[in-house]
C-alpha cells in the first residue's frame, strides 16, 4: 500500500518466494539491518489517521465537556474545574453502578472464557466426525448473529413470569424483576450472547498449534490433561490474553442488553456504569456529568490498558 522499498544487504532478491523455506537465523546483527526505520510508521499510518480524526477528536471534546457546566443544553457553558468529578464520584448510585459493573464484567468474562475454551475443545475433538462438528459449530455461533435489541426482547420473553423458562422448570420465578435475581439474570443473558467471540477465536487459535507438539508430548507420556495444560494453554495464551482484555473492556460498557431488559432496575440492582452514564445524558440532560462519567470510565480502563501493554513488553 505505501511501502515498496526495503533496504537489505542480500543481493539475491526473489520477491515471490513461497512456500516458506526457513533458513537458520544468522544472529541478531542480521535482524537489525532488516527494513527501513520509517517502515513501521507507514504500516500504522492508515490506522493512526482514522483513529485520530474519528476517535481522538470526539474523545478530546468529551474530556473538555467534563470540565464544563451545562454543555450542549446551554449556549455558553462555563468552566467549572473538577466540580463534575466530585459530583459524580460522590453520587451513591455511581458506587453501586461500579460494583455491579465489576460483578457483571468479571463473571461474564470468566464464563465466556471457560465456555469458549470448553466449546472450542469439543468442536475441535477428532472423536467426532467432521460433518457433525460442522453442524455443531453452526449451532454454537447462533447467539452471535443477533442485534442486542432482539436478544433483549427474546430473553425478556423467555424469562417472563409466564414465559417458557418458568414453564419448563414448572416454577414461577420473576427472573428479571426480583431484586435478588435480576443481576444474575442479566449476567446470564450476557454470557449467552457473548461466548461465541471467545469460542471462534480460540477455535482459530487451536488450528495454529503444530501437531508435532502434541506428538512430542504424547511420546513423553503426557495424558490428555497434561497435554492441554502444557501444550494447548501455553500456545493459546497470547490469544487468551488479548481476548480477555477486549472482553473486559466491552462487557464493562454493555448497554443495550441491560437497558432493554431491566433498564438498570429493579431499584438499582442492575445499574451499570453504562446505564448510569446514559441516564445522566438523556434522562437528566446533564451532558457534562455524563462526559465526566465517561472520562472516569476511560481512566479506569487505562489501568487495564497499561497492564496489557506492560505484559506485551515483558513477552518481547
Amino acid at each position, binding site marked *: 500500500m505505501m511501502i515498496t522499498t526495503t533496504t537489505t544487504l542480500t543481493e539475491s532478491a526473489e520477491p515471490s518466494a513461497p512456500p516458506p523455506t526457513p533458513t537458520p537465523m544468522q544472529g541478531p546483527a542480521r535482524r537489525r539491518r532488516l527494513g527501513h526505520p520509517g517502515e513501521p510508521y507507514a504500516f500504522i499510518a492508515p*490506522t*493512526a489517521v482514522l483513529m485520530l480524526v474519528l476517535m481522538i477528536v470526539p474523545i478530546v471534546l468529551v474530556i473538555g465537556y467534563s470540565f464544563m457546566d451545562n454543555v450542549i443544553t446551554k449556549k455558553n457553558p462555563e468552566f467549572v474545574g473538577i466540580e463534575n468529578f466530585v459530583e459524580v464520584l460522590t453520587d451513591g448510585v455511581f458506587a453501586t453502578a461500579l460494583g455491579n459493573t465489576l460483578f457483571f464484567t468479571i463473571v461474564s468474562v470468566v464464563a465466556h472464557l471457560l465456555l469458549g475454551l470448553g466449546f472450542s475443545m469439543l468442536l475441535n475433538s477428532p472423536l467426532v466426525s467432521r460433518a457433525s462438528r460442522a453442524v455443531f459449530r453452526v449451532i454454537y455461533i447462533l*447467539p*452471535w448473529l443477533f442485534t442486542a435489541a432482539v436478544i433483549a426482547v427474546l430473553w425478556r420473553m423467555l424469562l417472563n413470569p409466564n414465559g417458557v423458562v418458568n414453564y419448563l422448570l414448572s416454577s414461577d420465578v420473576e427472573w428479571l424483576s426480583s431484586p435478588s435475581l435480576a443481576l444474575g439474570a442479566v449476567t446470564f443473558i450476557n454470557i449467552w450472547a457473548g461466548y461465541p467471540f471467545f469460542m471462534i477465536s480460540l477455535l*482459530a487459535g487451536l488450528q495454529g498449534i503444530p501437531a508435532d507438539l502434541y506428538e512430542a508430548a504424547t511420546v513423553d507420556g503426557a495424558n490428555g490433561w497434561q497435554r492441554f495444560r502444557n501444550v494447548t494453554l501455553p500456545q493459546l495464551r497470547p490469544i487468551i490474553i488479548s481476548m480477555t482484555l477486549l472482553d473486559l473492556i466491552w462487557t464493562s460498557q454493555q448497554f443495550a442488553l441491560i437497558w432493554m431488559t431491566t433498564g438498570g432496575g429493579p431499584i438499582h440492582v442492575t445499574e451499570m456504569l453504562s446505564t448510569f452514564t*446514559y441516564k445522566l445524558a438523556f434522562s437528566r440532560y446533564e451532558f457534562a456529568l455524563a462526559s465526566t462519567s465517561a472520562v472516569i*470510565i*476511560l481512566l479506569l480502563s487505562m489501568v487495564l490498558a497499561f497492564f496489557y501493554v506492560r505484559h506485551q513488553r515483558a513477552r518481547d
Partner: protein
Amino acid sequence: MTTTTISRTRQRMTKKVLVILGLLAGAAFAGFPVLWMLAISFKSNTEIFEYPPRLVTESFSFDAYVTILTDPEKVRFFVNSYVVSLSVTAFTLVVAILAAYAFSRFEFRFKRPLNMIIVSVQAVPPITLLIPYFGLMVTLGLYNTYPGLILTYMVFTLPYAIIMMTGYFNTLPRELDEAVRVDGAGSMTALWRILVPISVPGIVSVGVYTFMIAWNEYLFALTLTKTQDMRTVPIGIQLLMGQHSYEWNEMMAMSILGSVPVLILFLFFQRYFIGGLTSGSVKS
C-alpha cells in the same frame, strides 16, 4: 496386548460419548433461545404470549417473512447492511493487518503509547461520544452516507482487529517471515506472502467478528442516517417495536432473515477452521 487394546477402545468410546454429550448440552444452551425465536416468527402475535407455551401452533405461517420480503423498504435495509458490513470487514482487515504487522514485528518509538491508546479508546461509552461524533460527521459531510457509516464502524472495529491480529502474528515464529526478508524480499512480501496466508484462520475469525459488529450496530446507524434508503437492519427491527406494541413475529423473522446469509458465509469459511496447518509448515 489384546486386553490393553480393548480397554483402550473402551476408553475411547467413553470419551467419545462424553464429548457428544457435552456437545449436545452446549447445543441446547446455545440453540434453544434461537429455536424459540424461530418458532415465534411462524406464530401469530396472539399466540406468542399464550400459556402454556407451545413450539408450534395452529396458525403456523410464513406471513411474517412474506411481509418483510415484499416490502421494498425493508429489503433495502438488508442491502444497506450488506454494503456497509462487507465494506467494513474488507477495509478493517487490510488496515488492521498492516498495523498488527508493525506491532508484532517492529520496535519503534511510539509503540507503547500507541498500543495503549488503541486499547483504551474502546472504553469510552459510545453513548457519550454520540453527540460530538455526530457533529463531526455533519461537518465532514458524511452524515447520511455509506462512507460515514463505514468509517465509523472501522473506527470501532480497528482496535479489536489490530489487537487480535497482533496476537495471531505473535503466535507465529518470527523466523518465518524474517527468513524471507533476509533473503531480500520486502516487508510487504513477507507480510502478504508468508504471514497472511498462514494466518487465514485468525483473519477469518477477526473478519467474522468485524462483520457481526457492523451488522448488529444500532445506535450510530440510527443517528448517522436520516432517510429510509440509508438505514440498516437493526433499525428496521427496532422500527417494529412501536410506542404501543411490538410486531413480535416480524421482528423475529427479520432477525432470522438477517442471520441466514451470515450463517452461509460462516459455513463457507469453516474449512479454514478445520484445515488448519500441517505440522510441517511452521517448524522452526
